[in-house]
């Protein structure tokens, strides 16, 4: 090797790798597909994570968003707590106004009056918090008008996500507590998370009513999923006969925006929300989808590793002789390993690129709910760290899957490699002995399995991973379907989460299917000779085909059972632990559903393996045995 | 039977005629059964006349040739030494068969392939005989080794016939 310069060596490795890949296009395509499925999902997850933060930030920039939103504290008077008296009210307002001069505050707008009201529009009603604003632009928190114009007397402006949820357009008539208004605009703000995550200036609750039916009345005095609307100050006052029941908000700009949380923690008897906490609320949903997708990506990564291992292991068996040749003409073990690794690294890089492209194209489908924030729709983009991480994972999968066989091949003695055409089958004595007592198809099937224990383990693992994924998805689906607005989710959010679930499920299933076919093919190819031999010795084609199929279905059954318990159970627990979710609320899937999953898995694997197994049982015997001579 | 072979069998020590025959039969095994006893004594007589061996009368004084004791003369010893040192090898006469095929084809006397087939039958019969005989021999006997040589030789001849067959098939289809 020292005779070659480094560049020449790299060129040699590259050329050998490319030539080998070209010779096995179908296999290369399968490898690509397997890794690509994983990288696509991972990209989706990562892009969503970025998308979760970005629209809020751009909204904040466009609307001169506040660093801290302060409001007077309103306690639900009817909840039995004695209401603050009039003097207290004024004191509170004074305290709020004084914040404008507090140290570190460099700008403010307000205080603005806020009132609670009930909005009715084309048959739909909703609680709202109405903020009274000036007609002119404010220095802090200038809601960005997306359609129509800004507030005027008799005209109401709706927060965009709220308008979307109520399906209200500019020019529509609405009533607030019975008074008629015209919708004059739709706007976004960074001072409050979009509907239905609004901050509670008045006592309110988002999401399902505890212990109540959907649609049941919330406790009196408590707003339910309030929307945000803007009116003129006059209109707000006109809506509220008693000025004491008004609340006030004030938007503050700080010298140090990063210190917003500390500022609000440090201050005083006033309710305050920092922009970071608004950000968190605003992007909670995207975060949930992202966790789903990241879990999916990890599962898919494991599946991809399993299918790669099978493919690579099968190829190594066929390649042992080639390795011997390479070594016989002077390749060092290092060169041999390098060529093998280079092949899969090439595939991995291509798969990473394809996955990044596919992932970023698919991401908008999952981020539509970003409405309510500027730039919230369809603009998630790939960042350098995302691309790096996805590529690294793809490479990691390739390296992990190929390292063992590559090292083994490189270490094989040259003479041994030249003499041995293939990896010798393993012997599992007790299985052979046990199989002797079984009917012919089972006898052959167990021996097929016993020849390659590692492949059986990979098959079991692959199915177990898939089924545990499906278990978790079933739980989440039941959770979303069974309780509308559960976990604080609105219809639109549930829709998005469901879409994320669907994406993960679809990719998980397709990769599992690819895996099943790959493993079956590897088994069929590997058993060409022994299948032909069994037939020469009197096994019928059907017996051989059945055996090849059973050799896949038995591990699938084991994998499915393991996937339900402990696989799915453990995975769900892990998901709960990482998301800090409250798993107790989610019902575990009923027994019949789990049985159905196991049964469907087995049937699906049987169907997928039927064709390769049938072909494997019908190859011409004489030809195969003759080919075995060389 | 070559004279030198008989001469060399006597080189170890003065030998009775019957001992000589036993020695030969041990070395040749079943093949030696076909050996004509008279043939050996004719050879011995020739060697004696050539002055290569001397005859000692046996102790009991009988005239029977198998009771006579034969010894090498110095000339005989020299002849044996020369023979041992000689590089000779029995050569099968393939040229004759080869020319037979060519002549038969050229003159249209017979189909060369028929000749090849007939020859093969003969050789296969011989091979079968040699092989059966070899299998009946105990392991590691001298005769088994000789038979192995004969079998291998016949195999080689049969392979050459195969080549002849291929060649003449080709010529026929080519012409």
């Amino acid at each position, binding site marked *: 090797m020292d005779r070659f310069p480094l560049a020449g060596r790299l060129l040699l490795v590259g050329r050998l790798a490319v030539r080998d890949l070209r010779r096995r296009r179908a296999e290369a395509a399968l490898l690509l597909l397997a890794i690509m499925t994983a990288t696509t999902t991972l990209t989706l997850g990562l892009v969503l994570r970025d998308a979760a933060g970005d629209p809020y930030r751009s909204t904040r920039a466009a609307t001169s968003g506040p660093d801290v939103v302060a409001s007077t504290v309103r306690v639900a008077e009817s909840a039995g707590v004695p209401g603050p008296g009039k003097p207290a009210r004024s004191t509170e307002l004074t305290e709020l106004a004084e914040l404008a001069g507090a140290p570190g505050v460099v700008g403010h707008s307000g205080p603005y009056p806020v009132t609670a009201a009930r909005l009715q529009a084309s048959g739909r009603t909703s609680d709202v918090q109405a903020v009274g604003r000036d007609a002119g632009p404010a220095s802090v928190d200038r809601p960005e008008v997306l359609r129509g114009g800004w507030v005027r007397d008799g005209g109401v402006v709706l927060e965009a996500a709220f308008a979307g949820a109520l399906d209200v357009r500019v020019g529509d008539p609405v009533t607030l507590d019975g008074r008629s208004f015209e919708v004059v605009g739709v706007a976004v703000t960074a001072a409050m998370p979009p509907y239905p995550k609004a901050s509670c200036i008045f006592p309110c609750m988002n999401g399902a009513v505890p212990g109540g039916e959907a649609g049941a009345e919330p406790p009196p005095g408590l707003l339910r999923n309030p929307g945000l609307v803007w009116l003129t100050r006059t209109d707000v006052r006109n809506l509220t006969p008693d000025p004491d029941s008004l609340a006030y908000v004030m938007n503050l700009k700080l010298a140090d925006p990063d210190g917003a949380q500390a500022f609000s923690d440090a201050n005083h008897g006033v309710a305050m929300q920092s922009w970071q906490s608004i950000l968190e609320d605003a992007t909670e949903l995207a975060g949930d989808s992202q966790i789903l997708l990241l879990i999916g990506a990890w599962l898919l990564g494991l599946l991809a590793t399993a299918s790669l291992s099978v493919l690579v292991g099968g190829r190594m068996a066929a390649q042992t002789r080639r390795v011997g040749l390479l070594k016989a003409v002077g390749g060092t073990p290092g060169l041999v390993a390098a060529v093998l690794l280079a092949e899969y690294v090439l595939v991995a890089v291509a798969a990473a690129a394809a996955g990044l492209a596919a992932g970023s194209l698919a991401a908008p489908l999952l981020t539509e709910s970003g409405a309510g924030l500027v730039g919230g729709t369809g603009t998630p983009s790939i960042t350098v760290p995302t691309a790096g991480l996805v590529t690294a994972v793809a490479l990691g999968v390739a390296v992990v899957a190929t390292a063992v066989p590559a090292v083994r091949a490189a270490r094989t003695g040259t003479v041994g490699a030249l003499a041995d055409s293939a990896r*010798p*089958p*393993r*012997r599992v004595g007790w299985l*052979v002995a046990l199989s*002797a*007592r079984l009917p012919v198809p089972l*006898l052959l099937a167990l*021996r097929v399995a016993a020849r390659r224990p590692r492949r059986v383990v990979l098959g079991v693992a692959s199915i177990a991973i898939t089924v545990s994924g499906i278990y978790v998805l079933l739980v989440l689906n039941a959770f979303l379907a069974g309780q509308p607005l559960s976990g604080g989710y609105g219809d639109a959010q549930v829709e998005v989460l469901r879409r994320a679930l669907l994406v993960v499920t679809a990719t998980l299933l397709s990769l599992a299917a690819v895996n099943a076919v790959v493993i079956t093919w590897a088994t069929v190819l590997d058993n060409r*000779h022994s299948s032909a*031999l*069994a037939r*020469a*010795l*009197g*096994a*019928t*084609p*059907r017996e051989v085909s059945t055996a090849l199929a059973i050799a896949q279905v038995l591990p699938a059954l084991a994998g499915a059972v393991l996937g339900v318990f402990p696989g799915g159970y453990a995975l769900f627990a892990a998901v709960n632990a990482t998301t800090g979710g409250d798993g107790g609320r989610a019902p575990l899937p009923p027994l019949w559903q789990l049985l159905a999953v196991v049964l469907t898995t087995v049937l699906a694997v049987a169907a997928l393996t039927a064709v390769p197994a049938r072909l494997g049982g019908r190859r*011409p*015997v*004489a030809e195969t*045995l*003759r080919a*075995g*001579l060389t | *039977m070559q004279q030198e072979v008989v001469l060399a069998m006597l080189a170890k020590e003065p030998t009775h005629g019957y001992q000589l025959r036993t020695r030969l039969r041990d070395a040749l095994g079943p*093949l030696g*059964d*076909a*050996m*004509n006893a008279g043939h050996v004594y004719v050879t011995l007589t020739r060697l004696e006349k050539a002055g290569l061996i001397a005859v000692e009368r046996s102790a009991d004084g009988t005239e029977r040739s198998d009771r006579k004791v034969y010894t090498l003369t110095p000339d005989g010893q020299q002849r044996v030494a020369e023979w041992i040192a000689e590089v000779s090898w*029995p050569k099968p006469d393939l040229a004759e068969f080869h020319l037979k095929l060519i002549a038969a084809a050229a003159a249209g006397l017979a189909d060369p*392939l028929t000749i090849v*087939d007939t020859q*093969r*039958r003969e*050789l*296969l*019969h*011989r*091979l*079968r*005989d*040699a*092989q*059966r*005989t070899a*299998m009946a021999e105990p392991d590691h006997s001298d005769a088994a080794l*000789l038979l*192995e040589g*004969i*079998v*291998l030789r*016949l*195999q080689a001849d049969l*392979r050459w016939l*195969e080549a002849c*067959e291929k060649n003449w*098939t080709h010529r026929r289809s080519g012409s």
Partner: protein
Amino acid sequence: MSDAADIPVLRARGLRKEYGKEEGLVRAVDEVDLDIGAGETVAIMGPSGCGKSTLLHLLGGLDRPSGGQVRLNGRRIDDIGEKALAQLRRTDIGFVFQAFHLMEELTAVENVELPALLAGRSPRAARRRAEELLERVGLAGRARFLPSALSGGQRQRVAVARALSNEPSVVLADEPTGNLDSAATLDVLQLFEGLHGSGQTLVIVTHDARIAATADRMISMRDGAFVDETWLTGGTTGRLGALIGLED
């Protein structure tokens, strides 16, 4: 075989096997007629590529003829289904291959018992039969060895034992000594002589004259057709001495 009532174990009539089409048509087996009587050992010889292995595969139902008939014990086997063929192979045909074709992960005795298991015999009966057969081929002491621990000759003897597992009407051997050295060839040769002696019907395809010389009958094959047939039975030439030039 002069008795007309005798049904030959194997009978082929007008047997053909063709590969390719039109210009590239190859007649691997070309109108072959063959009768093999019970207890007979027949050798089929010919240069490589003459179609002798294909013929053997046709006779054993491993391959389908393009034309003609094959009868095994009087029953046609060229037009029956794959399943029926497989069952026939279990009960009536034993194969011995040049490359041995043993299952590498199975011990000698497990290899030998496999056909019996495939034929649905009880595990115990199959094992007992396999042990007997290994004893018969002189490998009783190696029953638990994997093929990789056996010499070439031993492997082929295991393969012969396997072929005998279900007491087939005929054993078909394809170049059984092709991968063996001279000493191992002798081993297998002796084994075949023994089988012959016990009345086993044997068809051996070979280009090893030594194997062919053990047969009752030798058939020469050229370009897919039989061109010569020699009966080797009828004792020795009686002229052993001729072999070493002791007589002329």
